[in-house]
């Protein structure tokens, strides 16, 4: 297709325009409008919006709770990303070595990802505050005797555990794709050269799997930064606001405190931080990619 310029243009219009239209409608325009809102004192509903310049950005720097929840989010992202990818990689490694019933296990590990975050949060809330507490009472294990969700530290780890449980199945699928895409020639050559299992993993498999790592890290990073559903239904920011991640803080600022401008400005900061981190991660990852 596309023998001359007008043909090319026509094809572009047919195939690209709908996509561009949607992208503009749901990403670009809201983004620009959102930026405009950061310059106003809008409360979320009034018909008049007064321009207030950059004072909302000043408010962001004065909002200690925002930076606290940002720190907490960074901690959460760090642990979830590491654990999700570690667990996913190990699962994929095990399930590509011809374990009996591996298709069944693949499906099983992937299933949690099909449950929506809200439902998932409720299910795990029940597990942490009921099942485990009863279990602790029955067995006398101190660690389970009180609900994990009532202690700031344990509540944080509950969120990490649930996230790992939810996301690792998804990432596992991507790693499995990476494993099955490994060229058998290379693997065979390595075996003939006498590489042990660990050497093969370190020098052959890992470098060849970098593209999978790049995409998985990117997906987990962005999902962990933006997490809201699990946070809302599992802990709701409790106990006493100690597990409020940054997305939830932004929501509360904009809608509960009815301070839309400040909330939007904080969201913009969140965007910048996530964009920088993901960008750096992709750039570094791409440089490490090798050809087999």
């Amino acid at each position, binding site marked *: *297709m596309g023998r001359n310029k007008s043909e090319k243009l026509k094809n572009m219009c*047919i*195939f690209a325009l*709908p996509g561009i*239209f*949607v992208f503009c409608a749901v990403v670009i325009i809201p983004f620009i409008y959102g930026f405009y809102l950061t310059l106003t004192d809008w*409360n*979320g*509903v*009034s*018909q008049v919006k007064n321009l207030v310049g950059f004072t909302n950005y000043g408010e962001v720097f004065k909002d200690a709770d925002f930076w606290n929840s940002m720190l907490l989010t960074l901690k959460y992202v760090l642990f979830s990303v590491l654990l999700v990818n570690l667990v996913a990689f190990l699962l994929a490694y095990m399930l590509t070595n011809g374990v009996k019933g591996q298709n069944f296990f693949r499906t099983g590990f992937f299933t949690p990802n099909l449950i929506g975050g809200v439902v998932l949060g409720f299910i795990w809330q029940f597990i942490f*505050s*009921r099942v485990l*507490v009863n279990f602790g009472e029955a067995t006398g294990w101190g660690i389970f005797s*009180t*609900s994990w*969700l*009532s*202690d700031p530290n344990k509540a944080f780890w509950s969120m990490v555990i649930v996230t790992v449980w939810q996301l690792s199945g998804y990432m596992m699928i991507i790693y499995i794709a990476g494993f099955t895409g490994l060229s058998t020639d290379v693997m065979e050559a390595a075996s003939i050269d006498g590489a042990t299992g660990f050497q093969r993993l370190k020098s052959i498999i890992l470098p060849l799997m970098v593209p999978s790592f790049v995409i998985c890290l990117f997906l987990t990073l962005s999902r962990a930064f933006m997490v809201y559903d699990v946070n*809302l*239904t599992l802990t709701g*920011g*409790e*106990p*006493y*606001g100690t597990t409020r991640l940054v997305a939830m803080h932004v929501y*509360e600022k904009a*809608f*509960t*405190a*009815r301070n839309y401008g400040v909330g939007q400005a904080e969201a913009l900061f969140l965007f910048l931080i996530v964009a920088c981190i993901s960008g750096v991660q992709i750039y570094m990852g791409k440089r490490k990619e090798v050809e087999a």
Partner: protein
Amino acid sequence: MKSKKITALLTAAVLTVSLLAGCSSGSGGGSSAGNSEYAGTKISFLNSKGEIQSGLEEMAEAFEKGTGIVVDIMACGAGEVPYTKITSAYNSGTAPTMAMLDTTDIIALAEEYALDLSDAEWIGEAEAQITRVNDKVYSFPFCVEGRGLIYNKTAIEDTLGTNFDPSSINSYDALKSLLEQLRAAGMENPVVISKEDWSLGAHQLGFIYDAYDGTTKGADDIMAQLKGGLDPLEYARFNEFVDTLDLLLEYNINGKNPLGALYEQDPIFLVDGDAAIWANGVWAWPNLTDAGAESSDEYGFLPFVLGNDTSDFANNGIQAAASKQVMIDKVQASEQEQNAAKEFLNWIVYNETGQQMLVETCAVIPACGNNKNEPLDPLGKDIQQKMADGKAFSSSFIAPSDHWSVMGAAMQKYIAKESSREELAQSLSGYWKAQ
């Protein structure tokens, strides 16, 4: 090649059209016969009391039968904040004709979005419960709600082996001795304190505002003083409140891990008689029913006692005020829809079926004095009785919208013993100074 190209084009076209399909809106709707001049009009009603959703739907059906006006009851999902819902409805141009909201939200929206109802007939029926914004009425008081300490009379009497007179609990000391007696008689932890931030931050802590002098104006006063720098520790009501809270916490059945309390479990303690007192409000009745309570059981309210003055209004009555208000949209609704909405409100106030269904089907306490139906549940009955006897104060404090959430967290910290009275006072004064 040709057929491939056509397929590709068709696919692209279908995808594009299906994208746009979401934007079109269905219109129409059958008109049914009815005896109202607005018969066939379709209006909507945003319900923010999840527990009466099915009751309201039944009411809407009965109303439609009588008038031909169709009322669509929109539910506000669990965990969904009504104000957020109405905000997004306004921003997307799909505002409900009527919205049931908390007083704070009504005040925030009143002048810009709510229809002026100052000349409505029902104002005369509910004078004490009317909220005014700059001397104008923008909302209909849908129901009265009250809060205090819910008691299970049977559980108390069974434990103590004597008759229990709720009016004898009119001071901190009286409550203390009751709790001591209950513990001595074998009920180890007679109190249930829920850990929900809305309960702690708005309903419990709210007593320091509502009990200032028992009026909403008084509550505004004390909030202004706190904003002006009044130290909560110098404010008698705050100290009395924390004293009572400490007392309740000492006997809290969730005491081992106060923040591990479960809102579904809390009413079960009360109904089973493991505990006898639950700090909550009339809206907790559906939860009690779920836990096995019957309408014929004896439940009622004790005041959330503050201090030892037995003649104090706060120790002799409970707080009860119109807490859910209905406003009619003036921006996006047509005049016909507005009139149909007004007719719905009038039907609730003046039509016999409407009156009865409000009280019996929805199980709420009517704010309008002309509605003589008696609530079926004991908590509602108790509040109605107390209002009739003048043993209720109608203050309904109006705090900034994030008060419950911010102070709820501070209260959670306090009940978990992670902060002291001084720190709680500091959070409170910090919150108000930042306003």
